[in-house]
């Protein structure tokens, strides 16, 4: 059992997301610490990418803000942000980014730094099952889970993906890119059931969740809920006051995911 799997023990997990360096170094540290204080079970830190093809307008805008603040934004700055976060909280952290960022740093060096700083997993939307082989050896060596995505159109790929998963499985709520929505695919229960048949690795649903009601609904289907764009919106809207808002929001969402007893 990995540290990420542990985060789902005896409870439903609430997993917020924010983009690194949005609005700046200090702000990111304060925001992640606030999310942890509010009760986040895992925090996803997005490493900004110039061309985030799986993301909708809100996260795209966050990436642009982060890269505008520091056009080069070296990976070492991101690792320094994590180091600063680690001085204040031991909340499980994962990175969400695109494979080119990891590739350029070097798979071995990247995962080694993740292990050193307590980044327990990587979510890489442009690395499907068939392409994870090149990163997997380094990730395994450094105890970094590669968190796969499963979608409502994964079909007969579901079992293959689930069997190879460690940490947790990111269940994509519906077609399209990230961003708030009011409707989700209607066969998510069936999808999660199929995953659970082949693995004990927990599942968390993401893409579009923003209200407590949705979080409650999704947490009844899966083992956790991931919220990205809604958190990013708070950061965009409240700037320096974002930590307080994020803390309140996390408390509310954490309560919402645990509104019903654990299966």
């Amino acid at each position: 059992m990995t540290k990420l799997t542990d985060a789902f023990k005896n409870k439903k997990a609430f997993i917020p997301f924010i983009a690194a360096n949005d609005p700046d170094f200090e702000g990111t540290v304060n925001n992640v610490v606030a999310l942890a204080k509010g009760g986040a079970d895992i925090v996803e830190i997005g490493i900004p990418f110039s061309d985030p093809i799986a993301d909708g307008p809100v996260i795209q805008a966050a990436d642009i803000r982060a890269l505008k603040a520091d056009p080069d934004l070296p990976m070492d700055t991101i690792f320094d942000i994590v180091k600063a976060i680690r001085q204040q909280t031991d909340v499980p952290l994962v990175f969400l980014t695109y494979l080119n960022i990891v590739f350029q740093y070097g798979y071995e060096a990247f995962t080694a730094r993740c292990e050193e700083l307590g980044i327990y997993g990587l979510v890489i939307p442009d690395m499907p099952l068939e392409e994870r082989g090149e990163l997997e050896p380094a990730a395994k060596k450094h105890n970094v889970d590669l968190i796969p995505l499963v979608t409502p159109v994964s079909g007969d790929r579901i079992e293959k993906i689930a069997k190879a998963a460690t940490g947790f499985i990111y269940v994509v709520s519906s077609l399209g890119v990230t961003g708030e929505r009011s409707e989700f695919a209607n066969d998510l229960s069936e999808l999660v059931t199929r995953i659970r048949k082949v693995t004990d690795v927990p599942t968390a649903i993401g893409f579009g969740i923003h209200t407590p009601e949705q979080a409650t609904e999704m947490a009844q289907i899966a083992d956790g809920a991931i919220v990205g764009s809604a958190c990013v919106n708070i950061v965009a809207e409240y700037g320096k006051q974002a930590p307080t808002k994020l803390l309140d929001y996390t408390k509310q969402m954490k309560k919402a995911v645990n509104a019903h007893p654990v299966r």
Partner: protein
Amino acid sequence: MTELNLNLNKNTTGRYGDYGGQYIPETLMNELDRMTKAYEHYKNDPEFKTELHDLLVDYANRPSLLYYAERMTKDLGGAQIYLKREDLNHTGAHKINNVIGQALLAKHMGKTRLIAETGAGQHGVATATIAAYFGMECEVFMGKKDTDRQKLNVYRMELLGAKVHPVTSGSMVLKDAINAALQDWTKRIDDTYYLMGSATGPHPYPLMVRDFQSVISQEAKTQLKEKTGKLPDMVVACVGGGSNAIGSFANFIDDPSVQLVGAEAAGKGVETELTAATVERGSNGIFHGMKSMFLQNKTGQINPVYSISAGLDYPGVGPEHAYLAKTGRAQYVGITDDEAVDAFEYIAKMEGIVAAIESCHAVAYVRKIAPKMRKDQIIVCTLSGRGDKDVASIAKYRGVDIDD
């Protein structure tokens, strides 16, 4: 015209050495798999092949001419220059070759909606054209910067019944249009076929685009043999993502005596930031579904790129080009805006051909290399498109104000 050989390359794995692959969101993986299987099936289906052949001949106006550029040859005083006239195809560029093939595949897959990205607008126009022909819905994504500098093509697409979306994210050019098209596709897969225009992206696109564009070199090889009984000594084509170049190279890759040269857009110069010369200035990376070569910074952020040519300012090349470059089978050379514009004017005056500014990057290289070659040597240069669309911007480049 003989039927197009869609089994030219035996490597159908989508891997070109270290390059290629399918680095794409999970949502699209099953669809890419369906597409791959459909293509593997239909490329050997006699009915599909007949339909493709008939469309290439009767609709696209193939075979295109292989034209001996006598005045240019005399003027440059070296190698004999033959121009493969893709500019004479229906819609005015090589792009039609690929869209006919892929749209036919889409039709057989039961798709009713085509989406596409476009840079200069040539691929968008070609897609809109074939969508009109097949009675399919069509939406084209085009960077806002490109919709502004290629207004004529935007209107052409609309005239053909397509909806054009100006893309305002990122640097608002071709790469951003591809992002937007991919994002749209993940929202709507069932009835939608993403018709990628260049030899880029995840497998099977680089393979399909190469196969459908290989009609260029299949014809050129036969035509040159008929005219001279020889193979060319050199094939030159411009490279953005690399679709006309890979099509121009395909049938000569196994002929080691034929030198293959891709002319990249150097913009203001290969050494400047304002360039799109991916092979010369770029490095290995993973983007837009493929492992290939890209212009990027040390962290892996994709660089904004620049060229006067909207069709060449893409920060990557197709994976097979990266492979041909790495193995040394093909050479890639940077041509600046100035050189391309000079070539635009040169070929107009010398041969009476207004060629696309993209193609003029290849012409510019021919002007440099032909005088250094022997008179018994032969260059085949692909004119990938016609230049009507560029007249206004070339005038502007020269400081002439005309109404466009």
